[in-house]
């Protein structure tokens, strides 16, 4: 221990704090990591636990509007999972889950198909052009997300830019109905989350060693084939990172379906909001939210676990 604190005398105050921390079992390094951990615990783990707790309660007309966890008014043990049971019994919920997963899945796919060529193109540009193009990707973030979605509303509406243009060119005779359809929702989600796909992909593709493609060509591999067997497998971490960054928020997306998808868009984000604000059923809203968390987190954790294992294995 003594050898760990050689500067005790030369730095009186710092040394004292240090020796106290060390006496408490903290190394200076731990103290540094502690700050972000504390932050995450207070603002992420604790709220999650609170929501989990509420999801087991039942709604009551009171302040707060749910039964306490313990005590005489608490939920009987056999009714603890009632909220979760309802998720399976009421078709509203699982349909909303399916719709949301569907929207998220196809939006992710479209983002990948659009984003990959863009990221690839940017990564192969000269450094100065690269910076400019990246700026263009990030630029939309300078405007509020809500304003951008509203802008799409006016672009896609019956009197919007798209319809005006198509009518003016004589391609269509009467305005297309785009707004308040699933198509509008997809446009909104893809538009919003495309940068989250492009940026990790770019970071990955930019690092790629181009001599690998030369080596492939040298060994008789045509460029398109080399792209399939070298570039794509090597960019897999970027694809996965981008897909997760798009898929996860898209599942819980509330604003875009609400503004662009119309009243019939049954999405899980909207169900949570309705349960919470309109039905004032906090326990049910919490149960829906916890279920989303489980649906998203478990596959991701499993994936990371297996990926970690695959990388460790020497043979």
């Amino acid at each position, binding site marked *: 221990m003594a050898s760990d604190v050689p500067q005790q005398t030369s730095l009186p105050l710092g040394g004292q704090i240090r020796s106290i921390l060390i006496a408490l079992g903290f190394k200076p390094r731990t103290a540094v990591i502690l700050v972000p951990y504390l932050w995450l615990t207070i603002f992420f783990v604790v709220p999650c636990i609170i929501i989990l707790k509420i999801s087991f309660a039942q709604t009551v007309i009171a302040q707060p509007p749910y039964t306490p966890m313990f005590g005489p008014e608490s939920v009987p043990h056999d009714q603890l999972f009632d909220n979760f049971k309802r998720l399976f019994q009421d078709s509203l919920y699982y349909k909303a889950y399916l719709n949301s997963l569907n929207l998220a899945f196809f939006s992710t796919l479209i983002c990948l198909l659009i984003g990959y060529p863009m990221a690839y193109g940017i990564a192969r540009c000269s450094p100065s052009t690269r910076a400019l193009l990246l700026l263009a990707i990030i630029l939309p973030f300078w405007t509020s997300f809500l304003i951008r979605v509203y802008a799409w509303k006016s672009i896609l509406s019956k009197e919007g830019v798209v319809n005006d243009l198509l009518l003016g060119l004589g391609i269509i005779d009467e305005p297309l109905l785009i707004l308040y359809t699933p198509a509008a929702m997809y446009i909104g989600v893809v538009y919003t989350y495309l940068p989250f796909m492009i940026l990790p992909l770019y970071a990955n593709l930019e690092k790629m*060693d181009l*001599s*690998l493609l*030369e*080596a*492939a*060509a*040298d*060994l*008789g*591999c*045509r*460029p398109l*084939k080399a792209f399939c067997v*070298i570039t794509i*497998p*090597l960019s897999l971490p970027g694809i996965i990172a981008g897909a997760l960054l798009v898929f996860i928020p898209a599942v819980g997306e509330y604003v875009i379906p609400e503004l662009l998808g119309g009243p019939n868009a049954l999405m899980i984000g909207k169900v949570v909001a309705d349960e919470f604000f309109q039905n004032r059923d906090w326990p049910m809203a919490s149960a829906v939210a916890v279920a989303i968390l489980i649906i998203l987190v478990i596959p991701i954790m499993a994936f990371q676990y297996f990926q970690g294992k695959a990388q460790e294995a*020497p*043979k």
Partner: protein
Amino acid sequence: MAAERAKAEPSTQIWNDPNAQPYIRIENVTKKFGDFVAVNNVSANIYRGELFALLGGSGCGKTTLLRMLAGFEQPTSGKIYIDGVDMADIPPYERPTNMMFQSYALFPHMTVEQNVAFGLNHDKTPPDQIKSRVDAILDMVQMRQFAHRKPHQLSGGQRQRVALARSLVKEPKLLLLDEPLGALDKKLREATQFEIMNIQDRLGITFIVVTHDQEEAMTLSTRIGVMNNGQIVQVGTPKEIYEYPNTKFVADFIGSVNLFEGNIVEDEPGHVLIESTEAGCPIYIDHGISAAPGAKVWVAVRPEKMKLDKTKPDDANNCAGGVVKGIAYMGNMSVYLIKLDSGKEVKVTMSNQRRAAEHAIDWDDRVYVTWHANSPVALLS
């Protein structure tokens, strides 16, 4: 230093045979990157079965020339023929060449086996043949037991051997090696040099090796092309390059050399006499050069061809007096740094034939540097 090779014997010097067809013809090739001329009007003929080294410092254009042979760069002007075929419109994936990259460029997501099999897979080789050929080549480079490892699980030397195996497995007409042994330590480098020479003998593949390491070039190659500023300044066997450099640059680049500036006094077919204030003595060379009397020349003498004496020899020619300013003991030999009376410093190497010679030459001793009349080379540029 230069390991003599059977191939370098006069009888097999194919490049001296006027009827021999060169296997690779590089004709007036120039490559510019913007304003920068990387390769400047290079021509060379390389014959089947040769192990040709392109030797030069960094930025001399040797790698660019190699990349043009592989097809990764297109010459700005000039032509490259491999086996009589103009390579201008042939993309890298259709050329009969394989390259071993300086960075090895192993595919990180594939195992050693998959890396080596990569080229064969793209040739539509039958699967059972692929397996046996991959195994055979991995045996040759002694990497069979690591066949299922990924590149990041290998050491630098192992990776280098996998890269060599990958470029060899297709048995290309022409194998291009870019600084093949750069990352290896001395022992492993020497072992691999001989391994490459064995492979070359066995498979009869034509090799072109790019290197900045003159020792590597000397050991490996049948002929060396010395490059400087985008041009090949001399082509010859290791012996020719070392013993008969044609310029100061080559003399200085290959091995170590002492250069004396001087003027020709006598130029007869049988001998040359050169007056040099730098040497402080007349230099007599027992072979003629064709240059006008009075012309400025540089006389190059290798350190190992010089001798040190404590007593003044009788012959006034080829004898310069000086003082020992430094001795570097290297085990098998010692390098002496002599400050001549003219102020010029020369290096002399002497092999340590006896363990502790009694009249050993020591620091600050007055000595005479002498050399035989056939040792020096007079250079006009």
